């Protein structure tokens, strides 16, 4: 009987210890330089698989009845950068979106010029990496249209979005897309939310919409767009502000 009790206690302790060691081991591994890279290899697999399975498929578009009463803003909601404040006091009348980098025709587009381009309106879902979803109606120009105006050079591989909002460490928010997402018909540079001029908390005067990716890809407060061959030399080198904090560049999952 005693032996059985001892054996039971040993097994119980062994199980508890295994569980604790396993969880603590995961914490330890998370701190190494190699384990996160191994784990991240799954993202490349997810990206390849999802690209193959979905290709150019359209994100679901909803009806007016599905629109969220409040489109919850997240991240920066009121940028304080002087250049941004100066534009905001004047209702962004002096705003110009610069498009440059590896392009044949660098552009400088005012809001009026952007509004004159053919526009698209779509009611799409916004999925935050935290897990929640809101639905809103967006109006803007297809990014593909602006890219065709600028004529990307052959060497260009990525579209980099630079923003006005400074983050905690004083680096500016930025994001990037590959050409498959950049040329997707639902990828917009949007100036209208739910039929009204885009409010400041949601990214005025112009923000990116990429409905097949998570919220942090939908860069707000767009300042300029650059076409590049690689984003290795930009900021942290991982293609975006949150990517530099460890989030996946491919945010389709």
């Amino acid at each position, binding site marked *: 009987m005693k032996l059985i009790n001892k*054996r*039971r206690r040993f*097994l119980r302790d062994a199980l508890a210890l295994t*569980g604790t060691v*396993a*969880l*603590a081991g*995961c*914490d330890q591994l*998370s701190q190494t330089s190699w384990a*996160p890279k*191994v*784990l*991240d*290899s*799954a*993202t490349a*697999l*997810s990206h390849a698989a*999802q690209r193959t*399975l*979905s290709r150019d*498929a*359209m*994100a*679901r578009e*909803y009806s007016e009845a*599905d629109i*969220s009463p*409040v489109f*919850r803003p997240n991240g920066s909601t009121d940028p304080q950068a002087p250049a941004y404040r100066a534009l905001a006091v004047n209702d962004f009348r002096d705003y110009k979106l610069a498009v440059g980098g590896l392009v044949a025709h660098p552009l400088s587009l005012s809001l009026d010029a952007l509004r004159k381009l053919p526009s698209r309106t779509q009611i799409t*879902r916004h*999925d*935050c*990496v*935290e*897990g*929640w*979803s*809101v*639905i809103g109606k967006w109006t803007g120009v297809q990014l593909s249209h602006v890219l065709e105006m600028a004529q990307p050079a052959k060497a260009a591989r990525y579209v980099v979005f630079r923003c006005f909002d400074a983050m905690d460490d004083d680096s500016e928010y930025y994001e990037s897309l590959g050409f498959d997402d950049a040329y997707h018909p639902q990828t917009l540079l949007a100036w209208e939310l739910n039929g009204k001029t885009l409010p400041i908390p949601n990214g005025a005067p112009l923000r990116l919409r990429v*409905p*097949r*990716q*998570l919220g942090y890809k939908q860069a707000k407060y767009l300042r300029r767009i650059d076409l590049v061959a690689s984003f290795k030399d930009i900021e942290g080198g991982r293609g975006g502000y*949150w990517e530099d*904090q*460890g*989030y*996946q560049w491919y945010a*389709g*999952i």
Partner: protein
Amino acid sequence: MASTPEDVVQPHALPAEPPPAATLRRVVYRHTLPLRIMHWINAICLLILLGSGLQIFNAHPALYWGQRSNFDHPWLRLGATQTRDGKLQGVATLGSHRFDTTGVLGVSKVDGQATVRGFPAWATIPGPQWLSMGRAWHFFFAWLFAINGVLFVAYALWTRHLTRDLVPTRRDWRGIGRSIIDHALLRHPKGEAALRYNVLQRIAYFVVIFVFGGGVVLMGLAMSPRMDSVLGWLVDAVGGRQSARSIHFLFAMGFIAFFLIHIFEVIVTGLGNNLRSIITGRYAIEETSEQPAMSGGGASEIPDTETHDETHQ
């Protein structure tokens, strides 16, 4: 020397003459190597997927039904309030019911400090709040879990493990009432009968593999904004992306319920024997020599050095 059946059931009694009946301990080869490997890969995957899943849940510890989040009406929320004396109080809200869950849900200690977080640090991977790392763990082991699951189903179909051992037979269904009573009374089959999965076991394994396992993967995919461009029908079928997130969570809770029952049954039906069978494949049964000493359920017989009386084999 008089030999009675009472004498021979004594494990170490070695009668001079062969008795008419004896209790034999026979070891059979129960679980094949591929099944054992897949079982343990699955166990590791589930542990890590659960821990990292709770980490991801903690980034927004509330669940909703529908396409979008109705922030004022989650059906489940693990939140926090402050009491009048300034102490943090964990509050779990389930529908219209509120529970004080301080210490575990909503508010729990991190490095000795009461902290606002959905699930406690001991249950999440990594322990501290770290969404991006939780996602990295989750998606890596999600692939492993899915690949392992597909291989298991293929193997189980190929070897007929699925149709022979896991699908309840008509006779199984008829005996379900008695099986429920037997389980409640912790009465478990012995001998040959122990080699065969009983009806509740078959239902449990079948539901866990195909409903929970298949469902948790599908609901995970339904949460991917990219996959939703081709899985719209699935998202709509369950009521929307936020419903998919809720169902994904409920399947995970289902896995926990299965895990607890599984561990309980493993212990009450012989922890050592069960553990040995899922590590080495060898499972011991006791039977009387009056039973035909043939192996059932595809388990092959192995000569066992521990058999006390081999004269009746």
